[in-house]
């Protein structure tokens, strides 16, 4: 009971601190500090509730136990990370997004194909494509190639739709200006339409980062060599070693955030001119 009571006090104190901090004038330090305090509070609540209510570690291990497990099994986690994220997700992401981009540029010259592809692409992007995973595992075998294939299929359509939309986003005045300059099609594409499409393209790339990780991990549930994050999660769940599962989740969360953050940084340097980046 003391645990629960103590954590309530801590929670309220942290919240009051955050309310105070958020009233201060804006600064990068505060923008980082406030969510950090909130995150720490969540961790403390979690730890205290698990200890205070004596929840079995089989159901929900406390953060401290997860941290210990994480530190103790770094080699295993690294092997899984390489297998799933680098080999599966990243290669699939690059192939899928690249193929979608090239397709979008290829159909760009034909308004007929665009009008046909956009609705179909939007439709397919909303479908539960993860369901293709068992089929692709059947086709490409158990190793990372099948995971990459799942990722390719998952990221292709969101990326395609975004790129096609982006290429249409330059307005009439700008395109007319290009015509008065006597710019050829490739020139107009390189100088005007591709740069103008960048915010859309990066939106697609950012959506696809999470999709890529999900695809690579879920595909491992349908068969994998004896390494990989999805494999580890499903086997450790079976052994009720929940701390290991949470350690893998931590890796997945870190990898996902880093992946997303990396693309967002790249976006910032490429689309520095866009209003959303200047604000």
């Amino acid at each position, binding site marked *: 009971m003391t645990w629960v009571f103590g954590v309530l006090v801590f929670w309220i104190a942290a919240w009051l601190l955050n309310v105070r901090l958020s009233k201060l004038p804006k600064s990068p330090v505060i923008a980082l500090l406030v*969510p950090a305090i909130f995150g720490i509070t969540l961790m403390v609540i979690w730890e205290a509730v698990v200890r205070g209510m004596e929840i079995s570690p089989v159901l929900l291990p406390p953060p401290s136990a997860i941290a210990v497990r994480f530190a103790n099994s770094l080699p295993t986690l690294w092997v899984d990370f390489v297998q799933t994220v680098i080999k599966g997700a990243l290669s699939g992401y690059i192939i899928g997004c690249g193929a979608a981009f090239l397709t979008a540029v290829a159909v760009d010259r034909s308004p007929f194909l665009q009008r046909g592809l956009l609705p179909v692409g939007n439709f397919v992007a909303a479908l539960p494509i993860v369901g293709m995973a068992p089929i692709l595992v059947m086709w490409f075998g158990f190793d990372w190639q099948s995971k990459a294939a799942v990722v390719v299929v998952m990221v292709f359509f969101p990326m395609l739709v975004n790129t096609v939309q982006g290429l249409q986003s330059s307005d009439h005045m700008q395109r007319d200006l290009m015509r008065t300059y006597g710019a050829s099609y490739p020139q107009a594409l390189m100088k005007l339409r591709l740069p103008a499409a960048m915010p859309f393209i990066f939106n697609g790339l950012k959506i696809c980062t999470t999709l890529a990780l*999900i695809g690579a991990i879920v595909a491992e549930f349908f068969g994998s060599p004896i390494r990989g994050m999805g494999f580890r999660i499903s086997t450790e769940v079976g052994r009720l070693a929940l701390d290991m599962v949470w350690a893998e989740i931590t890796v997945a969360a870190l990898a996902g955030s880093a992946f997303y953050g990396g693309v967002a940084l790249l976006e910032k340097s490429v689309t520095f001119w866009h209003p959303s980046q200047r604000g």
Partner: protein
Amino acid sequence: MRSLAPVFTVVTAIFVLWYLAAVALNSTWAYDKAKRADVTLTFSQMVADTLAQDKPLLPAPHQVAKEIWKTTVLKKVTSKRSLIWHGWITLSATLLGFAMGTGLGTLLAVGIVHSRAMDMSVMPWVITSQTIPILAVAPMIIVVLNAVGISGLLPKAVISMYLSFFPVVVGMVKGLRSPDMMQMDQMRTWNTSPATVFWKLRLPSSMPFLFTSLKIAVAASLVGAIVGEMPTGAVAGLGARLLAGSYYGQTIQIWSALICAAALAASLVAIVGVVQKVTLKRMGMAA
């Protein structure tokens, strides 16, 4: 209407590609069989065989269509082999998760818009939460909730909720903030309370944003429900059909479950679209 012909062309092209791929992928097995039976196949025989195999690598569209027809119309709805029965199980988890996600998302958005502290502390974590590949953790959530004694719909709905609350939060925060300065000032000159501002101005002007988010959320929550069904031991639901099909190499069954899931997703999004049209029209906001 202008886009009908292009869409039709693209869809036809997809079907043609599908048939070609089916012939190409299944031909190895067809030749293998012929070799064992000591017959040589002519090209047309080979094609005919590739489109009618029992466990093809890639079933042809008409085989899938036949399987769907067999498992929806010809089977009793209560039968465990009826896709409608499995679809209904998935659908109910989807809808429950969708409702929970929409509720949670709206609540969070209301809090974020009204409290600066909440905006600063919660919003970054909401975004971070989506970089965690939750689908990958789905089996654990299911197993753990089962161990606590919660089974059936709820665990799947929790995963759907996790996937669907995010678009709603983002859309609603944007929507609730969409009234411009002039409108907010107008409210202030009338000396309205924050509650009135919310009900009369913020909520109505967030509707277009809400519906766009709901379309994404409903599709996401179907994905969540399907993946949530996989680790429960393939008992029931479209996800279970996928898993069982992949265990036993029943490719036609996998594809028919997949097509049904696709049809379900499409109709859910379409329903939200219709509700959006009707609501916005009655509110006088139709584009």
